């Protein structure tokens, strides 16, 4: 926190003056708000998504067929299920950060903005959680009608 404040400050002679008030520093207010933290989270999740999405895209594309048994068998492989869980989690997180930025930019009314920011959080936990739960169900063999 202190390093962030110093980085945002203005160098005056030998000292750097922090332009945020002490209260503003604690609350993370100002035009940047949590600023650098969100920025880093976006970049790190973006970098993680490069291999994850490419793996998902191309391993799905290279399956011999897209019928139920082929896809289910593929998803039931431990490494596939593990990477699919990571994919859904990181994808939901990255998409959540992006959607938050869009709402903050375009929804100006305070009440509506607060409502949408909260609704989006619930929606992402719901969708991400459902996706991960589905992968785990396939991984641990529940709900397989045809049996082993």
């Amino acid at each position, binding site marked *: 926190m202190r390093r962030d404040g110093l980085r945002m400050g203005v160098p005056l002679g030998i000292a750097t003056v922090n332009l945020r008030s002490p209260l503003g520093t604690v609350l993370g207010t100002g035009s940047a708000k949590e600023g650098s933290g969100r920025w880093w989270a976006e*970049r790190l999740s*973006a*970098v993680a998504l*490069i291999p994850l*999405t*490419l793996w998902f*895209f191309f391993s799905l*594309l290279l399956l011999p*067929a*897209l019928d*139920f*048994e082929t*896809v*289910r068998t593929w*998803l039931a492989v431990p490494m596939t299920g593990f990477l*699919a869980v990571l994919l*859904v989690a990181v*994808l*939901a997180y990255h*998409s959540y950060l*992006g*959607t938050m930025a*869009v709402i903050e*930019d375009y929804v*100006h009314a305070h009440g509506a903005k607060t409502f949408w920011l909260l609704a989006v959080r619930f929606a992402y936990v719901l*969708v*991400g959680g*459902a*996706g991960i*739960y*589905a*992968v785990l*169900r*396939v991984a641990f063999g*529940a*709900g*397989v*009608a*045809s049996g082993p």
Partner: protein
Amino acid sequence: MPTRNRPLSPHLSVYRWQIGNSLSILHRFTGAALALGLLALAFWLISIAGGEASYQSAARAFASPIGVLLLIGWTFAFFYHLFNGLRHLFWDVGLGFERRARHASGWLALLGACAATVCVWAFLWGSRP
């Protein structure tokens, strides 16, 4: 409320449309489209967990004309967001800011995404008629 009529960012109307800002808004637009794609991905995974019958009905929905159109759109959105995201990561470490590099990488991201989309769907239709 005096705050109601103040000009608020982003001031889209003051920009002349050119490659830089067009690709920037396309990055956001494809990101929003991919957020809806996450819903489709979750729906598809849930359909697999639900067994053969639920997978078949999900697969039928994706194979419908609207489903295929959406999937092609998501393919383009994915590749464009990936390529343009790479541009952003290069800018973040201070590379590629010069006018020539910016424009070249922008066109590369746009045309590369178009080419990748065509390749993927040509492969899909070629291998699974």
